[in-house]
């Protein structure tokens, strides 16, 4: 949450630019597979950042953001297939159309809380991709739709496509992060936190609770739609098999283990869920295990990592990073002060004192209404 509450716009822009330069240099240095991974991580970051705003700031859980990614991806595929527009325009349109879908879902979700919202969004994540099976004519059924994406001519013919994809995805992710960081610090962000911490108090203070909650869904869906659009151009194929419930659950998982409600946390979480399985696969195959064992060790290891991170770092990786910085005295005074009151964040306890402390602390964090 530091990223959203304390950093000024110049500082956010500075960090974003520095990251852009580092990513660009890395993408030139690394091979095509690593470039593909950079793109993958950037896509994940885009989607997870949107979800961490929805769940962490506005307090609404979603297990269906994978469905929004599907909307963005299919929009991209259909636009690229039927109209020959520049891809940047297509990406923006995909985000806008998904945002509209998010508004529809947000209206339906505005009255729901905790597990009921989780159930409804989970089912949305399962149901929406199945439409692609039912209407094969438009969506290509099981096979999906092909997406044709090439490097622009000004980069020359020898410029690797994966590097270009890494650049496009990273740029989109960074722009998303900057916009979200600004939004989180704005009046909108404050309304989200107010509604998350106490709906009644927020309403009494003049916040339009329903509109605020719906707007969070719109923003979150736009991010997921953009991520889906990027996924479409990077994988070159949009098929329903890519948008399973596993995807939606992975997004929430990344947001929480990274540190819910924090944008740096969205980055840490995305790194974990993209890199841990790949790394574990490398280790397993290099030890010459049989294929069924080698392919499943990463799955088991990933599950174990999720459990351990949650038990050891209740505030996610970003919480651990803050604690480490505090240990070396690098952090600001407020970070240290916050590290002292982790128990105030427990939403299990709803006594007024805890609540006051919770809303007094800018950290707030966590699941709000869950």
């Amino acid at each position, binding site marked *: 949450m530091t990223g959203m509450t304390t950093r000024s716009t110049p500082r956010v822009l500075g960090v974003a630019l520095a990251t852009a330069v580092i990513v660009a240099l890395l993408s030139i240095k690394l091979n095509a597979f690593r470039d593909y991974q950079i793109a993958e991580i950037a896509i994940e970051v885009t989607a997870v950042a949107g979800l961490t705003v929805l769940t962490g700031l506005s307090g609404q859980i979603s297990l269906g953001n994978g469905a929004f990614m599907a909307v963005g991806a299919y929009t991209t595929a259909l636009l690229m297939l039927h109209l020959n527009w520049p891809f940047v325009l297509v990406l923006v349109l995909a985000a806008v159309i998904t945002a509209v879908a998010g508004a529809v879902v947000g209206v339906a979700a505005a009255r729901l809380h905790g597990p009921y919202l989780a159930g409804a969004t989970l*089912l949305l994540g399962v149901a929406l991709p199945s439409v692609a099976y039912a209407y094969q004519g438009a969506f290509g059924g099981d096979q999906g739709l092909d997406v044709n994406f090439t490097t622009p001519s000004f980069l020359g013919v020898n410029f690797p496509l994966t590097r270009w994809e890494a650049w496009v995805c990273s740029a989109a992710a960074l722009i998303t992060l900057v916009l979200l960081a600004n939004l989180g610090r704005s009046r909108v962000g404050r309304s989200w936190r107010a509604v998350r911490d106490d709906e009644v108090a927020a309403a009494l203070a003049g916040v339009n609770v329903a509109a605020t909650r719906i707007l969070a869904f719109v923003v979150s869906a736009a991010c997921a739609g953009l991520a889906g659009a990027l996924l479409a151009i990077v994988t070159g194929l949009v098929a329903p098999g890519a948008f399973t419930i596993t995807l939606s659950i992975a997004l929430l998982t990344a947001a929480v283990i990274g540190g819910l409600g924090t944008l740096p946390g969205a980055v840490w979480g995305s790194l974990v869920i993209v890199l841990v399985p790949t790394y574990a696969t490398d280790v397993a195959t290099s030890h010459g295990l049989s294929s069924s064992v080698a392919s499943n060790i990463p799955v*088991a290891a990933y599950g*174990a990592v999720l459990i351990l991170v949650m038990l050891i770092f209740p505030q996610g990786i970003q919480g651990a990073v803050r604690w480490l910085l505090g240990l070396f005295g690098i952090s600001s005074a407020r970070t240290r002060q916050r590290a002292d009151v982790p128990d105030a964040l427990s939403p299990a306890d709803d006594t007024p004192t805890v609540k006051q402390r919770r809303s007094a602390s800018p950290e707030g964090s966590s699941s709000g209404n869950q």
Partner: protein
Amino acid sequence: MVEFLQFTLSGLSFGMIYAAIALSLVLIWRGTRLLNFAQGGMAMFTTYIALEVIRQTGSYWAGFVVALAAGVVLGAAAELAVIRPALGKPELNAVIITIGLLILLEGLAGIFYGGQYRSFPAAFSIIGLRAGSTPLGVSRFDVFVALAVLVATLLLAAGFRYTSAGLRMRAAAFNATVARLSGIRVARVITVGWALAGLLGALAGVLVTPSTFLYPNSMDSIFVFGFTAAVIGGLDSPLGAVVGGLLLGVALSYAGGYLGSQGSDLTALVALGILVVVLMLRPDGIFSGARVRRV
């Protein structure tokens, strides 16, 4: 008319399985205020154990009993090992831990048993029953499925109502602090709740797998629909779980039956439609009590 009867009966039989999963989720929700995403994964794992026992001993019933026992052990062990340490931390942490547990169990199943689809035996004949010459759309095994879940549900309900252990569980779910002050060991009660939920999940796994095959993800969609059933019924209501399961089972059976192949592709969408309609009218499920939101 005959078709309608067939779809209804087979829907009820499948609905009982959703009901079992829903009931197990409700048991855990009432004790821990937590959605257990590993419920389906635990059921998948105990079904693998059952298959192993059946192969070793040649007896279906040995496998059946071992699966239920394994469900009890797995449920209690999960609560003690990974859920209890997470209580008091941000609420979503425990949810992510159950997701981690699900992924861990699916990975372990893949390591031990491989990813291929295995068939799982049914306790009774799966040939459709007939009334005179009209096929009823259900088999002897389907009847067993419905009866088994019904018996388990009734036993559970009776246990809650008429035994002192049941009274303690109800008290702990109603108000943990007061229950603790009255000398109830709430932590132990919660562990028992997880064990019972594990048992119900294991039952659902053994009952559903003959019609779905067994593989590490085999319980995923069953879990989603069981969860949906619990949400439709209201997560605080065991009765709601059963009604929600049956409602969903029958509705999905009609959708698959009457809408043809497109209908079976769209079952999840139909379920979503039902869920949205129910939650529009009752945001906390059909059997939710009067709505109390602490201010």
